[in-house]
């Protein structure tokens, strides 16, 4: 019988975790310290270590979640990049103060994708004088997702003399938001070279012990090495996504709506699952202050963790975080932390319990209470603060705009009926939170390595945005650079739009080298009658599809 082996590696801030899965079983789980000076070597070390556990003969797949592109962007190490934009009328780009220079060209595509005025070819030719061949170029037009013609024309012209990277906005996202499309395309172009160098290394690894390498994305899905060359930007922020995928792989949760709480030393991250799907950011990921259109799981970080600073102020009482206290007292630190409270109360065994008890006793004396009671109060405060943050989180989600009468009358139910916790201290803090919120809870098995398991269990995500306008007789799928005339526009209804979107999603997935046989679901759709002068003149349809990102289910014990 054939087994399917997958290794997941998640490069984190402190450790690099690796997991080896055989079908639905975890075979091994290891971690090595992350070497920030040489990410590649610690990543390869993690791979080598986990491969030592591998006894099989079948080929192994590798899913990599790295911080490479995230770091390049956060540290401002991207290649010199120029943005060539076709903004048309509207918001003055200069007023948005982008931290990079933009060359603005004449040309105007309107909201329906009609070309109101063409590119000025003299301006296009003049680009040659201002763009350096060593620079990467990002080409972005307003409403290019409705009609990519200007971006495509520019790409053809630029390719005549520019040998460097050229990124096109419409290929990266079918969503509206010109400023975000500019930023996304700019970042994608600026990290393309780093991604290329990175790929060269891994292409060598591919074909030895490893049959196939995939890169984890911010939406929790994977893409091929080759695809990541064109869309490097999608590999940002894959770490949080890996943890969420770990939850989806390992959790026994019977509910469709649940809360994910990832408790760490410094911060606690929250994410929500609604109707069985992880909630995504409305527009896209934000990285190092850049707002992008990169699809990403929605997470919110709170400055509350096991190593948070505990302070007492007259009138305010005890507060925890958001600063980090450093090492807990039980590990020789100077400041008492929630970890010390858990250790003193016997809820966790880390370091020296006596030191923690002593610490609380000394502090408690100044209030004239027992150290044990103070430690308990600190844990109660932790629970209360976390519960408040959870409520704020759902309030924010519940403020998502609603655009139909139907939705206002039947707003989607987002609140959780179950909590899944992960992270090293989850066993201590999660049960009291769940009791406080009156919800059942589950602490994930392999809590500390769930990210690597999630990376290994993740599957390909790929989707398209179809926009059809029957009055103009045109259909566009920007991600594929596809634009065609509709043969019989009068008969192109929403059903036809769905059919075409599904067929095109499969075609697109196959062209990228993915298994396109899975279920395709419709993430979002819209359909409007166009009425002009008391008469219906056509319809407009939008269908956004995705290959269902089914995560492999994984058993909670080591084989």
């Amino acid at each position, binding site marked *: 019988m054939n087994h399917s082996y997958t290794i997941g590696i998640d490069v984190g801030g402190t450790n690099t975790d690796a997991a080896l899965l055989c079908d639905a079983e975890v075979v091994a789980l290891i971690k090595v310290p992350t070497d920030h000076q040489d990410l590649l070597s610690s990543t390869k070390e993690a791979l080598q270590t986990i491969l030592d556990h591998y006894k099989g003969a079948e080929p192994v797949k590798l899913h990599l979640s790295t911080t490479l592109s995230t770091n390049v962007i956060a540290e401002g190490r991207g290649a010199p990049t120029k943005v060539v934009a076709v*903004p048309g*009328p*509207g*918001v*003055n780009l*200069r*007023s*948005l103060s982008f931290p990079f220079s933009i060359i603005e060209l004449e040309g*105007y595509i*309107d*909201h*329906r994708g009609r070309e*109101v005025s063409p590119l000025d070819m003299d301006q296009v030719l003049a680009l040659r004088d201002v763009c350096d061949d060593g620079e990467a170029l990002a080409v972005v037009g*307003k*409403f290019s997702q409705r009609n990519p013609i200007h971006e495509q024309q520019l790409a053809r012209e630029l390719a005549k003399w520019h040998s460097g990277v050229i990124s096109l906005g419409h290929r990266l996202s079918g969503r*509206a*938001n*010109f*400023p*975000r499309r500019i930023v996304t395309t700019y970042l994608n172009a600026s990290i393309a070279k780093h991604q290329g160098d990175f790929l060269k290394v891994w292409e060598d690894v591919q074909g030895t012990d490893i049959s196939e390498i995939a890169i984890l994305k911010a939406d929790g899905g994977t893409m091929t090495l080759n695809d990541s060359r064109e869309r490097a930007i999608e590999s940002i922020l894959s770490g949080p996504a890996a943890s969420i995928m770990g939850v989806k792989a390992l959790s026994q949760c019977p509910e469709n709506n649940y809360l994910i709480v990832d408790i760490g030393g410094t911060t606690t991250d929250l994410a929500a699952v609604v109707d069985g799907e992880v909630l995504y950011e409305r*527009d896209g990921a934000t990285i190092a202050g850049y*707002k992008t259109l990169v699809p990403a799981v929605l997470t919110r970080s709170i400055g509350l963790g096991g190593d948070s600073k505990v302070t007492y102020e007259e009138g305010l009482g005890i507060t925890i975080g958001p600063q980090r206290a450093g090492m807990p007292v039980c590990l020789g630190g100077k400041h008492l932390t929630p970890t010390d409270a858990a250790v003193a109360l016997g809820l966790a065994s880390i370091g020296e319990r006596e030191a923690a008890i002593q610490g609380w006793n000394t502090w408690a004396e100044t209030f004239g209470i027992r150290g044990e009671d103070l430690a308990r109060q600190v844990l109660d405060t932790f629970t209360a603060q976390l519960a408040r943050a959870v409520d704020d989180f759902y309030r924010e989600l*519940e*403020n*998502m*705009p*609603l*655009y*139909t*009468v*139907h939705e*206002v*009358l039947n707003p989607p139910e987002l609140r959780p009926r179950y909590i899944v916790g992960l992270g090293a201290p989850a066993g201590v803090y999660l049960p009291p939170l769940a009791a406080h919120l009156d919800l059942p809870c589950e602490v994930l098995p392999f809590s500390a390595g769930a990210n690597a398991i999630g990376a290994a269990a993740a599957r390909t995500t790929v989707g398209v945005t179809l926009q059809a306008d029957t009055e103009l007789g045109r259909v566009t799928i920007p991600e594929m650079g596809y634009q065609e005339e509709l043969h019989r526009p009068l008969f192109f209804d929403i059903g036809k739009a769905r059919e075409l979107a599904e067929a095109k999603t499969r075609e697109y997935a196959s062209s990228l080298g993915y298994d396109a046989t899975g279920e395709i679901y419709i993430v979002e759709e*819209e359909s*409007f*009658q*166009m*009425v002009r*002068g*008391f*008469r*219906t003149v056509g319809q*407009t349809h939008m269908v956004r599809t995705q290959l269902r990102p089914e995560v492999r289910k994984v058993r909670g014990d080591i084989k």
Partner: protein
Amino acid sequence: MTQVGLVFFPAFDWAISPDHPERQERLLYTRDQIQEEGLFDHPSIHEYRPRRATDEEILRTHVVIPSLDQRITESHRIAAGGTIVAADLVVDGLVDRAFALLRPPGHHANRVVHGARGFCVLNNEAVMVDHLRARLGADLKVAIVDTDAHHADGTQDVFYNDPGVLHISLHQDGRTLYPGTGFTSERGGPGAYGQTVNIPLPPGTGDEGMLMVMERVVLPILREWKPDYIINAAGQDNHFSDPITNMSFSAQGYAQLTELLSPDIVVLEGGYSIESALPYINVGLLLALAGLDYSKVQEPIERKNREQGKSITEQVAKVCDEVMDLWQTRSQADLGEVFGEADFFERRRQIYYDTDNIYESQQEYVRLCSSCAGWRVIYTSSTRNRDPVGVVLLPWKPCPVCTGEAREQYEELTKDERFRQVVWQDPASKFCRCDGTTKT
């Protein structure tokens, strides 16, 4: 940085009827444009959800015949509720200004509602203004500046005799456009004489004329009256591309108007050039409200006559002079001459509901009172609701005499067999019975 709250509710699943201009698609391109310009996630623009207005909130302002549930749809309730949300954002200090960018519109809806007029059933601004007074007290002074191309006859009707509200409507001359009213001679009831200010503009008036009206009339009046809140009922059908009006404003003109007026709360009204005007006007308006650069906002089509004709400019200047003269002399007017010397001022009206094609007959008596705006009684019936309905109305700050008399009148009407339905409306009372009493 000015923070702007945006309550966007395009009601993508609601239309008056298939193929009606007030349709699902109306704000689609506005949504597309705002989204593509990145304004939904601009750091100074914050989007909020609308909510349903409650019966109490609506019936504080309106008398709906025969009942609320028989006359309004959920979309009307949400548009009114969304407007209240916008006002609360400003009052609560969550934002500096707010824009209720929503439909269906409201400014043709009168106090008494038998059905839909001019695509409107509930008057969103009016419900919001009364909500503000219920929250902040009856002494609040609110100015409404209506910049829709159609006369805001509904809003004028609701606040006709209300000293707490200054209602300024600039619009295409009523002799040339629905609803055919809004002349300078309509100046308000005996309790608020002069506080209804109509500025009828000749067809073809462009940005130049509109800016002249702002500078010569609207801004000086506002400076003098000193409202606590300025509300802009922002119809967008003065645009040169609007299919059902004949004005000549541009998106730039609308943005300049917004900047000059600096309203606290903006509420969308009409505007049916949904592709060539609304996306650009709304983007310009949002930018102007937030104090951002709108200089590059421009519609895709050129105006035929960029310059407003000389004769139009002269006509606009004349209207400005006339309106200012009326404003400055409002306190010298002899009310006895205008409203008579009797105890009551009587008004009889025929009101046409174009959207629902019904006629209403109204007979109204306003108590002339020197201590308050005076109580009122309205007898109303329509081709849809033929049984006459009696409505007794108290003003926001009634004097004890008026309150007593109105009570007596109400008791009398409930005993009168000619009226199957009698309504008592006391907006200021916490215990107000704003519901209609229906006799069997």
